[in-house]
């Protein structure tokens, strides 16, 4: 690991108008100059803007991939290896921004989470590391059990506990396996249904954006939709974690 000179780059004032090529003055430049091809200094933009997209959630992933490849051919450090040191630094930063943006936007869940992040919403940590951290520090992690799942989860946990006991004693209970298998299928179906529900809110959101023709939609209207998305994501995380536990328990 080396200490990079990025710190120094950060300190340097960047050209104010990032749409004018620093090298030839062409006005169409954003990431690279359309006229002379030079990589431009990275501008602090969100991932949607980076790809020249409105902040909408229904997105054609194959077009995104095409744009990703095209931008890679301009911004990647390999293709700017003979440029000046400053340009190489910009190429490295631009290219990492491009990769980060593509990785986030092509995945439906990450894309939704990112939009919520842009809306200033902090999502409840459901990640495995957060769970481990809570376990290690003894903090009680907020775990919201969706009310409609309470009964099912209670039963499933009983079965899983039973399965663990059986594993210790070496007992084999095919009926128990079947029960857990059924519960897993049910959870997977619920997971699918949640994704479907989420896509409905995407369309609501996109409609809101379109209706406001680029200017920001009223805060309360945005909040109404994002709250629903947060709810779906939380329920989805909960179910996904359950499925993971079930898979771990079923593995011999």
């Amino acid at each position, binding site marked *: 690991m080396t200490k990079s000179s990025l710190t120094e780059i950060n300190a340097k004032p960047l050209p104010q108008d990032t749409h004018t090529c620093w090298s030839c003055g062409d006005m169409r430049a954003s990431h690279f100059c359309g006229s002379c091809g030079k990589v431009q200094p990275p501008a602090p933009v969100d991932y949607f803007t980076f790809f020249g997209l409105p902040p909408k959630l229904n997105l054609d992933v194959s077009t995104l991939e095409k744009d990703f*490849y095209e931008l890679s051919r301009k911004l*990647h450090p390999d293709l700017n290896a003979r440029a000046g040191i400053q340009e190489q630094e910009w190429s490295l930063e631009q290219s990492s921004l491009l990769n980060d943006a593509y990785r986030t936007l092509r995945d439906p869940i990450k894309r939704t989470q990112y939009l919520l992040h842009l809306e200033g919403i902090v999502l409840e940590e459901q990640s495995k590391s957060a769970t*481990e951290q809570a376990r290690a520090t003894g903090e009680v992690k907020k775990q919201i059990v969706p009310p409609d799942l309470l009964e099912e989860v209670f039963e499933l946990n009983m079965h899983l506990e039973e399965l663990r006991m059986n594993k210790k004693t070496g007992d084999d209970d095919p009926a128990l396996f079947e029960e857990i298998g059924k519960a897993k299928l049910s959870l997977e179906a619920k997971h699918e249904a949640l994704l479907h529900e989420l896509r409905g809110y995407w369309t609501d959101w996109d409609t809101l954006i379109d209706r406001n023709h680029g200017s920001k939609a009223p805060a309360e209207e945005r909040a109404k939709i994002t709250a629903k998305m947060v709810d779906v994501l939380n329920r989805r995380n909960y179910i996904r974690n359950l499925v993971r536990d079930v898979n771990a328990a079923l593995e011999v």
Partner: protein
Amino acid sequence: MNSDNIVGIDLGTTNSLVAFMQGDTPVVIPGDDGLNLVPSVVALDANNQPVIGNSARGYLIETPERAVYSIKRLMGRGVEDIQEELKLFPFRVADDMQPGEVLRIRLGDKTSTPPEISALILRQLKRNAERYFGGPVTKAVITVPAYFNDAQRQATKDAGRIAGLEVLRLVNEPTAASLAYGLDKKRNGIVAVYDLGGGTFDISILKLHDGIFEVIATNGDTHLGGDDIDNLLITIALDDIRGDLGLDLRRNAEAVQAIRKAVIEAKIALSSQPAVKLDIELPQGKRYQREITREQFEQLIQPIIDRTVGPCKQALKDANLKPEQIDEAVLVGGSTRIPKVRALVKELFHREPHTGLNPDEVVALGAAVQANILGGGSQATENMLLLDVTPLSLGIEVAGGVTDKIILRNSTIPASATQFYTTQIDGQANVAIHVLQGERELARDCRSLARFDLKGIPPMAAGIPRVEVKFLIDANGILHVSAREQRSGKEAEIQVQPSYGLTDEQVEGMILDSFDNAEEDFRRRQVIEARNESATILAALEKGKKSAAWGQLTTDEKKQIAKMEKALHAVSAEDDYQAIRKAIDALNQGTTRLAELMMDTAVSSALKGKTMDETDLGEGPTAPHPMAKAEFE
């Protein structure tokens, strides 16, 4: 000669190679023994001078304490994580190692770090290339196993610097192989590269799309390869010898190396023969004789090659692909010559593997392709672009000793992540950050990359400072970190304590002697060659002056030639080879008409029935300039 020759280097566990793009084709540059493969063996001769490659192999058996092989296994590793290697390999760790110090290995009376030993191999490859080009080579692309971590990559880059090479890029070995594969097969599709070499195993799954080589997932084991098969066979032989002959040779380095040589030959033979006979001469006039059938061999190595299954399955899972969706499984690395390994790959990917590539050379050839792309490309590499990934997740240690992953494995590189930190005590000026690499949940199970101290945070109440730390993995897979306190806008100072690896200052210190020597050697060679050439042309001129043609020149022309002759004489006494070459070129230019006139004389003499010997031509058609490029029929 192109002064900007960028070479591609495969720095392997067992063998190393250097290649470059000749026109549209990557080619391997042979050593002075005419062989493409340079064994990754370093030895010290009786005068303590390093000997590298084929000529060093003899030392392994004769003076094993003055030779080292498979040094790649130790790159970027600490003394505590090589205990297993020490049981199997004759590495001799320095006795005076201090805690936290970079590993040093004894070689003869000296101790050297793994990057310094690797640098000797790199310098040999550099020299081979320089001899081939007739000019200095200073830039290279070096390949590394895809599953190499940050410390192993940094150690490889350090080795390059120590050898006097600017390492323009570290490329992952399977990806490099895919570049060579894709160069002539302009085809789109999903390709799995199964790379089982001497010491490392990698699996990479790529999507080839109109010249873009996009790695989707990669996995591997940096300590799995042909070495493990050799060690297994050596152990069996040693056990046999102890049991049957009552001879314990485990501490006898010479005997172990003789056994190693024999089992490697047997292993290679078993790829093409149903059985081989081992017959090894041992101390005390004893012999070890044993027949191994391919069937027995396959049973023995099954547990070793089975270790490649897990990484392959994980890579498929990470790529979200089923085996049927792989269009081609490409074999790379010498160990894929073993029929049993080929059978395993067929089983894993549900298809006959592609064996059309030379498994020993394809990685170096691919590195040459990447070198060409970095150098601005050519017609053959037009539109080619490699998008690689980071093989391991990058994490930060958080409360409770847990790893918080901030860049996940298989993220396309360059990749970045920004984290925000604050203080816990009023007026706290430092924040400690522990960076980790690996997939495990607990920090202690991951690889420690470095500990950072963010320093110089302006005094504020606890929780008020907001330090933005940016982690960036570059296209080499190496991490860079920068930090800024947002409220004050002040750059926070980062103090890096790499957990493994050399500091910049240490590397600088190592460069100077080896680098200077290499440059000096090269310069000296150039001067000698230039002086030889100068002597040749001056001798030819003397002959020319005695020819009839000399009389046909004008006084002015003769004066000019005399002036250039004098200049060449003068610079030939100096040590500046470039000046000598310049003066030679000038004299060549200035004597063109003399050469033409001599030619005419020769032709007319021939017409008059005289033989070539009777002309004033001197040494005939093979005479060096001033005869220019005349051709006689």
